[in-house]
């Protein structure tokens, strides 16, 4: 099966920013994303909306260039303000044309 390597960028963030995050990830060039409700703890701890209580975990398969743009947006607009963590891993995909 022919596969190609892309990057899987995973972002964990407080739930309240979901809407904006999805918009910004799309604006950075991602063609799709998957979101899951999560909970967690990190160094920051305090969360605004104890009520929503939760985090979200977004992952998006993208090209390295898009991954870079996403991380830049995160570094500029999210890391200083919100409880957000992000990482990327290498992933092999079938149908690579779907993601670029």
């Amino acid at each position: 099966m022919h596969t190609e390597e892309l990057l899987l960028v995973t972002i964990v963030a407080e739930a309240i920013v979901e809407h904006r995050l999805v918009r910004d990830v799309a604006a950075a060039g991602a063609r799709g994303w998957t979101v899951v409700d999560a909970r967690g703890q990190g160094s920051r701890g305090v969360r605004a909306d104890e009520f929503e209580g939760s985090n979200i975990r977004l992952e998006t398969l993208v090209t390295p260039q898009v991954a870079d743009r996403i991380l830049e947006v995160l570094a500029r607009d999210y890391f200083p303000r919100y409880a957000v963590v992000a990482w990327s891993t290498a992933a092999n995909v079938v149908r690579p044309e779907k993601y670029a």
Partner: protein
Amino acid sequence: MDTWSLAAANLTSPPVLAFLLGLAATALKGDLRLPEPVYQLLSFYLLLGIGIKGGVALREAPAGDVLLPVLVTLALGIVIPLLAFVVLRFMTRLGPVDRGALAAHYGSTSLVTFTAAIVFLGAAGVSYEGFVTTLLAVLEVPAIVVGLMLAGRHAARSASWGESLQEILTSRSVLLLVGGLVLGFVTGTAGYAKVEPFFGGMFTGVLTLFLLEMGVIAARRLRDLPQAGFGLVAFAIAFPVVCGVMGIAGGLAAGLSTGGAAVLGVLAASASYIAAPAAVRLALPEANPGYYLTASLGITFPFNLIVGIPLYLAIAQALGG
């Protein structure tokens, strides 16, 4: 009933006891948190139900009786956050961003405190104007805008004003409350009768469940109390009483009954912990939730629920009666 028996009746009512149970269980390290979807169902139900009942009542009220109270409530929604912003300057060492965030919370109002007051008045046999829910809806939004404006001059804004305002106006709590008001207004008493067993009969029971959850959440918030500092704790108790008196006086001046004025006092005294935190977190991420959530949810909410509600009624009876 005199003040003490009112206070005792409030303290031994199922909703308040459930709140205390949630506090106690959390202190014992038990976990009585309901899953997120259930929490959302309960708050959805309370918001819509309050709205519908308010709408039904609004329809019965002569428009003339409603106008003045609405104007007074609007005024409170502008004056209270300004006052909070200034008072916090003297009572705490917080910067303008955190003070603006707190102003938004204390100027806005708390659905659950309002609801508990309504249930309390019903049990105490005190009548009030049914359209007070309209006042709840009126008081919810403006103070948030004022608070954000006060802080915004000092903060790096992360979102445009338009975006933030739109998010507040189309937030779930505003839509359900206002939507419920319209629904109730249109359907009227006859339409409401069919959903009364659901939105009416079950109401106090659902509120009891919800307050149990609130107890759990408030208990968690209290863990951040040391961070808040003495000045903020004092503010979180004293400021609501001042606002309560302002609300009561304004309500009586606007022609509300004793019960109605007490409710407006509760509205003025209570601090938001749903609409305001969400708006503030998005528009003012630099503000520290350790201050505004701990104050509004950890201190002011229990204070109003346990002490404030009967107190404001007693004050209204003293001033109005």
